[in-house]
């Protein structure tokens, strides 16, 4: 009989174990969210990430080995982004009728996200590369990395800040919007997509298809707006 340690080292170095672990960790997170009565702060991404981080640390597995398996899940982000065309098409009449509020909310939300983040961080004494890397945090990762690089930030750090912003938005959006008594699915989704890109959009789809469609549109539009305004706004803080 083969030693358990040998079997483990065989499995731990291949993609099967870590692909399975990623799906199971997410299912645990989703299950906990259901059990909690769909409380927004019981977020499946946050739970899955925390569980997997602990498992990787305990088993001394490096991220590259983990990603060998997880890359199959990660890869689906591209096709899923393209698939957003379906809810966009389903809601096209509603979106066309909402172009004025969308345009206003896009500009207000995008400027607020960048300006307030830079002002608060600088008040805490954050400067230089870290401050610059914060500017594009609300936009979708590939665009944020490009913007960060162009304005003198660190792409790696920006990737971290983008994910943190996404999870933060997904967790805090519902309590804030409920407190403000905003029940319009269009407004809820659009604000989430503008402030928290794809992770916010994923959260918006849990509320409704309409909310998700508006979040997807907001994410796409904010990618363009952030690429245009982040280089200008950062000048105010240098």
């Amino acid at each position: 009989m083969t030693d358990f340690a040998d079997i483990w080292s065989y499995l731990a170095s291949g993609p099967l174990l870590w692909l399975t672990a990623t799906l199971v960790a997410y299912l645990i997170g989703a299950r906990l969210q259901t059990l909690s009565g769909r409380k927004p702060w019981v977020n499946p991404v946050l739970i899955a990430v925390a569980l997997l981080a602990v498992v990787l640390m305990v088993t001394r597995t490096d991220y590259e080995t983990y990603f060998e398996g997880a890359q199959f899940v990660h890869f689906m982000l591209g096709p899923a982004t393209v698939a957003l065309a379906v809810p966009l098409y389903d809601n096209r009449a509603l979106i066309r009728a909402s172009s004025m509020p969308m345009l206003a909310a896009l500009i207000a939300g995008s400027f607020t996200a960048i300006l307030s983040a830079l002002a608060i961080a600088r008040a805490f004494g954050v400067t230089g590369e870290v401050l610059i890397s914060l500017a594009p945090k609300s936009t979708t990762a590939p665009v944020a990395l490009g913007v960060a690089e162009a304005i003198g930030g660190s792409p790696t750090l920006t990737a971290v800040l983008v994910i943190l912003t996404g999870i933060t938005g997904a967790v805090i959006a519902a309590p804030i919007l409920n407190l403000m008594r905003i029940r319009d699915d269009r407004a809820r989704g659009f604000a989430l997509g503008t402030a928290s890109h794809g992770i916010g959009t994923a959260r918006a789809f849990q509320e409704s298809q309409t909310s998700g469609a508006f979040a997807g549109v907001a994410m796409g539009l904010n990618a363009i707006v952030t690429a245009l305004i982040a280089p200008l706004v950062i000048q105010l803080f240098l």
Partner: protein
Amino acid sequence: MIQSIAILLGFQLGGEFTARALGLSLPGPVLGFAALFFAFLLVPRLHDLMAPTARGLLAHLSLLFVPAGVGIVRHLDKLGDGGLGVLVAIVVSTALAIAVGAGVFVTVDRLVRK
């Protein structure tokens, strides 16, 4: 389903190609998303064909962010001494952006309807 996945990948591929060829800073999948939407307007049957697969994929959009999320854990130390300030900035600015965005949306919506 395989047909739908092939179409999604095809549009992503077209988006990547266009972004590279024209030197655009927009990601390929975002261009593919816009192109597929216009394709639906031209050929509504394409939408009906792809809707079930697309909805299934989007229902679990959260799952797709897990690998990248795990990746950030090892970079948290990069926040350095400014870590607290950066975290406060992220939480407060995200809360403000959501509140302002949604507030402006409903206000302008009300004004336009009048």
